[in-house]
C-alpha cells in the first residue's frame, strides 16, 4: 500500500508544483513528470497487488463526519487501476511534448494540476473503502476533468462540450448520492466491508440508482451524450485518459455496488445484456456515420462500454441461471476488456492527437495520404484499429472470444429463455464486430491512405518526442496483451470471483475452457505472424530481379484523377447509413446538378446525435433554468448572507431544543 500512497503523493506533488511554476515550460515539465512518475509507481503497485492477491488496506483518522479515510485495493480494484495508471503515464508522455509549443500561451500549470488531480481521483475511486469517501473522490474525478477538457476555452464548442460533460457527470453523481444515502439509511454505515456482508440487502431501487449513476459516467445509451461532445473538444492526451480510464470507473462502480446487493438475479442479467447490446450497436453505428476521427473514436468508446456491459450481462445471467462456466467467462471478459479497451483507445486517441497536431485537423474529409507523411502515427493507428475491430493478433479479440464462448455455453444448455438471450448476444456481437470493421477501415483507410484531401494534410508530419512515441508504445502493448491473453485471463480471474461472490457449479470448467482457448489463440496469432513473415519473404524473392515500376493509380483510362474524387467519409459509410436511416437519422443536404451543363453540385451530410438533441438537451436546459432560479439566493450582498447564517443557527437551535 505504501507504493500506492507514494504514487498519489507524486501525482499530487506534480499537481501542486505545476501551477507554482507558472504557465510555461517549467509548469509543463513539473506537471507531466509528476503524472508520469506517479502513474508508473501506481502501475507497479497494481501489478504487484494483482500478483500477490489478497487485499491491501490502509486507513487514517479523518475529521469529517460520516465517512472514514479508508483505502483498500483487492483484485477487482487493482484491475481497474491498470488502465488508469497506464493511460496516466501515456497521457503525461504525450501531453508533455504536445503542449510544449503552447508554453506561456495557455495556462499549462493549471492544466496539469487538473490532469494530475484527475488521475489521482480516478485511481482513488476503486480504492475507496467507504461510501462517503467514494462520493468525495467520485466528485473530484468528475469536476477536475472539466477544466482539463476546456483547455481551449476560447472556442464556444469546447465550452459547450464542457458544459454537457459537467451536467451529465452531475446528474449521475446525484443518483450516487441518493444511492449512498439509501445505503446509509438501510445499513447504518457506509463501510464497504459491512455493505459487502449484505448489510443493506437486495433492492431494485438501489440497483437502478447504481445503473443510472454509473451509467452516466460510463456512457450507457442514453447517458452517453457527453462522450461524443467532450472527447473531440478535449486535448488528445486528456481524451485518451477520459475514454480509456475514467469512464471505466462507471463499470467499476456497477460491479462493486452489485457485490453489496447480493447475487444478481436473472432479470438484471437480461437487462444489462439488452442495454449492453443496444449501447454497442448504437455506438458503433454512430461511429460509422461520423466525419471527425475523434468523434468517431468517442462513439467507439460507447460501443466498447456496451460490449463490457454485454459481458457483465452474460456473466450475471450465468450466475443467476446456474451456468458457472458462462458466468466465469462473461465476468472475466468484461474485466479483460476494461484493460484491453484502455490500451486500444489510448493508442487511437493519441494517434488522432498526432494527426490533429501534424495535419491541422481530424475531419476525415480533410485528411488522406498521411501514411507517407506520418509513418509512425500510421503504424500506431493501424495497430489500434486492427485490435479494436477484434482481429488477430490484436487484443480486442480476447474479450470477444470469451464473450462468444460464454454465450455459446448458455446456448448449448438449450433452456429457454437463456438460450434465446445467448443467440441474441452472438448475433449482436457479430454485427457489432462487422460494423466495427466498417467504421475503422473508414477511420484508418480514409484518413491515412490514398491522396491528401487538403493542403494541410499534404504538409503533414509526424510529431516529435513523446507525442510520437506514446501511441507506438501503447500499440506495442496492444499486441503484447493479445499475445499474453492467457496470462491476463488468469490474472483477472480472482477479480471476477469477487464480483461473482459464489459461482454456481462449472466455473472451474469455464476457467479451463477460457485458458485453453486463449492459449491456442495466442499460438494462432504467433502462427499468423510467422505466416505473414514467410509470405513476405516469398514475395520479395519472387520480385527480386524483376521489373518493379511505379505509376499512377489506375482510374479506368481517366488520366486526370484528383484527390477530391476519392471516396469521402459520407460516401464510404453510405451503404450502411442508408440502411440504418431510421436509427441514425442522417441529415442530407443535396444541391443536385441542373441543366445540360451543370455548373455546380454539392452534397452535405451530417449525423447529429438525436438523443442529445431531443432528450438530453431539454433535460439539461431544465436543470440549467432551475439552477438559474437558485441564483436569486446568491446575489453577493453580505448582510443578507449573514441573515442566512443567523436564520440557520436559529433553526438549528430550535430543532436542538425543541
Amino acid at each position, binding site marked *: 500500500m505504501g507504493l500506492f500512497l507514494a504514487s498519489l503523493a507524486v501525482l499530487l506533488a506534480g499537481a501542486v508544483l505545476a501551477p507554482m511554476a507558472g504557465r510555461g515550460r517549467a509548469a509543463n515539465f513539473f506537471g507531466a513528470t509528476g503524472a508520469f512518475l506517479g502513474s508508473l509507481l501506481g502501475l507497479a503497485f497494481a501489478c504487484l497487488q494483482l500478483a500477490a492477491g489478497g487485499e491491501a488496506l490502509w486507513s487514517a483518522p479523518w475529521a469529517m463526519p460520516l465517512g472514514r479515510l479508508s483505502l483498500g485495493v483487492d483484485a477487482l480494484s487493482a484491475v481497474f487501476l491498470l488502465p488508469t495508471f497506464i493511460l496516466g503515464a501515456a497521457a503525461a508522455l504525450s501531453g508533455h511534448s504536445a503542449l510544449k509549443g503552447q508554453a506561456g500561451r495557455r495556462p499549462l500549470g493549471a492544466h496539469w494540476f487538473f490532469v494530475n488531480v484527475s488521475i489521482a481521483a480516478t485511481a482513488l475511486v476503486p480504492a475507496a473503502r467507504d461510501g462517503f469517501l467514494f462520493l468525495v473522490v467520485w466528485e473530484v474525478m468528475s469536476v477536475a476533468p472539466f477544466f482539463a477538457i476546456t483547455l481551449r476555452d476560447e472556442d464556444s464548442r469546447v465550452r459547450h462540450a464542457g458544459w454537457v460533460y459537467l451536467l451529465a457527470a452531475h446528474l449521475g453523481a446525484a443518483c450516487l448520492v441518493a444511492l449512498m444515502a439509501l445505503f446509509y439509511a438501510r445499513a447504518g454505515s457506509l463501510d464497504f466491508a459491512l455493505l459487502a456482508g449484505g448489510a443493506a440487502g437486495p433492492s431494485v431501487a438501489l440497483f437502478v440508482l447504481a445503473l443510472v449513476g454509473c451509467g452516466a459516467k460510463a456512457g450507457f445509451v442514453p447517458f452517453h451524450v457527453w462522450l461524443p461532445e467532450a472527447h473531440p473538444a478535449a486535448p488528445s492526451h486528456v481524451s485518451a485518459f477520459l475514454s480509456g480510464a475514467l469512464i471505466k470507473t462507471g463499470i467499476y462502480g456497477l460491479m462493486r455496488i452489485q457485490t453489496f446487493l447480493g447475487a444478481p438475479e436473472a432479470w438484471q442479467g437480461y437487462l444489462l445484456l439488452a442495454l449492453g447490446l443496444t449501447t454497442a450497436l448504437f455506438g458503433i453505428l454512430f461511429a460509422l456515420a461520423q466525419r471527425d476521427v475523434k468523434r468517431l473514436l468517442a462513439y467507439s468508446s460507447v460501443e466498447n462500454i456496451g460490449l463490457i456491459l454485454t459481458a457483465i450481462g452474460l456473466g450475471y445471467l450465468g450466475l443467476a441461471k446456474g451456468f458457472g462456466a458462462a458466468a466465469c467467462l462473461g465476468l472475466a471478459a468484461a474485466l479483460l476488456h476494461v484493460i484491453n479497451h484502455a490500451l486500444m483507445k489510448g493508442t487511437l486517441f493519441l494517434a488522432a492527437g498526432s494527426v490533429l497536431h501534424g495535419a491541422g485537423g481530424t475531419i476525415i474529409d480533410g485528411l*488522406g495520404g498521411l*501514411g507517407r507523411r506520418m509513418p509512425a502515427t*500510421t503504424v500506431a493507428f*493501424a495497430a489500434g484499429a*486492427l485490435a479494436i475491430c477484434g*482481429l*488477430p493478433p490484436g487484443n480486442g*479479440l480476447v474479450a*470477444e*472470444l470469451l464473450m462468444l*464462448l460464454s454465450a*455459446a455455453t448458455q*446456448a*448449448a444448455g438449450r433452456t429457454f429463455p437463456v*438460450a*434465446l438471450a445467448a*443467440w441474441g448476444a*452472438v*448475433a449482436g*456481437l*457479430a454485427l457489432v464486430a*462487422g460494423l466495427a*470493421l466498417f467504421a475503422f*477501415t*473508414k477511420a*484508418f*483507410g480514409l484518413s491515412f*491512405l*490514398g*491522396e491528401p484531401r487538403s493542403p494541410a494534410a499534404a504538409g503533414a508530419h509526424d510529431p516529435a518526442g513523446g507525442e510520437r512515441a506514446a501511441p507506438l508504445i501503447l500499440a506495442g502493448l496492444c499486441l503484447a496483451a493479445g499475445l499474453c491473453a492467457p496470462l491476463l485471463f488468469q490474472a483477472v480471474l480472482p477479480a471476477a470471483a469477487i464480483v461473482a461472490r459464489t459461482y454456481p457449479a462449472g466455473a472451474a470448467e469455464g476457467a479451463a*475452457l477460457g485458458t*485453453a*482457448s486463449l492459449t*491456442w489463440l495466442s499460438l*494462432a496469432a504467433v*502462427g*499468423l505472424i510467422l505466416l*505473414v513473415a514467410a*509470405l*513476405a519473404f516469398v*514475395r520479395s524473392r*519472387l520480385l527480386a530481379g*524483376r*521489373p*518493379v515500376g*511505379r505509376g*499512377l*493509380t489506375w*482510374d*479506368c483510362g481517366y488520366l486526370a*484523377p484528383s*484527390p477530391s*474524387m*476519392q*471516396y469521402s467519409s459520407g*460516401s*464510404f459509410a453510405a*451503404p*450502411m447509413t442508408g*440502411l440504418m436511416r431510421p436509427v441514425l437519422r442522417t441529415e442530407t443536404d443535396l444541391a443536385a446538378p441542373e441543366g445540360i451543363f451543370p455548373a455546380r453540385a454539392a452534397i452535405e451530410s451530417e449525423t447529429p446525435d438525436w438523443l442529445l438533441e431531443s432528450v438530453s438537451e431539454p433535460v439539461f436546459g431544465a436543470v440549467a433554468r432551475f439552477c438559474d432560479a437558485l441564483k436569486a439566493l446568491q446575489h453577493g450582498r453580505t448582510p443578507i448572507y449573514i441573515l442566512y447564517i443567523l436564520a440557520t443557527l436559529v433553526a438549528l437551535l430550535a430543532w436542538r431544543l425543541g
Partner: protein
Amino acid sequence: MRALSAVNLLLALGLSPLLLGIINRTKAVISGRSGRPLLQVYFDLAKLLGKGAVYSRTTTWVFKAGPIVGLAAVLAALAVLPLGGVPALVAFPGDVFVLVAFLGLARFALICGALDTGSSFEGMGASREAAFSALAEPALLLALLVFVSRTGTYSLSRMYVWPGAGDWLASGPVLILVVIALFILLLSENSRIPVDDPNTHLELTMIHEVMVLDHGGPDLAFILYAAALKLWLFSALVVGAAVPTGLGSPLLDELAMLAGMGMCAVAVGLVESTMARLRLPRVPQLLTAAGAFAALALAILGR
C-alpha cells in the same frame, strides 16, 4: 487421423483453384460455350507469380501488406477447418469464432489495400464489401452456433460430425436450413452472383473485383489464391453439413467429401447461370434471409 488432417490441408491447398475452374466450366456448359480450360486458374496463378509489378505512387506499405496478410489469414483459418469427419490439423475450443476472426482480418487487409490506392472505384468496392460483410457476419455466426448448440462443443472439428442414421430425422430439418444459410453466405462472401459478379471488372455493380484493380503480379496471385482458398473453406462448411460421413472407410469418406465439394462448385455455377445479379439494396435482404434460416434452425433445435 493426424496424417489425414495433413492430407486434407494439402488437398485444400492443391485443389481449391480447381473449384473456380469447375464453376466456370459449369457456366460454360450451360450457356453452350466451350469455355476456359478446367485448370485455367492454375495457369493464371503461375503466370502472375512469374511477373513483375507496378505500384501506384499513391500507395504505401499497406497496399503491399494487404495481399500477404490476406493470404496468411485465410491459410490460418484453413488450419482449423475439418473435412469429411476428419478433425482439422489444429482444433481447440472456440476455434469456430477464431476462424471468423481470421476471415475478418483477410477482409480488413483487402479493404485497406483498396483504399490505399486513392481510387474512387476501389473506394466504392471497399465500402460495399465492408457493408455486406458486416451484415453477413451475424448470419454466419448464427449458422455456426447451430452446430455448437447441437453438439455442445466449441471446436469446429468436434461439432462438424455427421449425426448417426437414427438421428437423421431429428437433425435433418435443422441441417437443411443451415445448409441453405451457409450456401447463401458462400455466395455472398465469395463475391458470386447474385451478390457480386466475378466477371464484371469495370462496371458500377462490382464489389470484389474492383478492389483489386491496382494489384498485379505476385500480389494479384496471392489475392486470387486466397479467394480460391476462401471458396474452399466455405464449401467445406456447406459440404460438411450436407454430405454424410462414417461410410465405413476413411477413403470412402474422403471421396464422398471431395465429390460433395465438386457438387457444391457445380451448384454455384448453376446459380450463376440461372440468376441475375441482385440490385444492391436487395443484398441486405438476402443476407437477412440467411440469418433468418439459421435462426429458424436454432429454434427448431432448441424446441
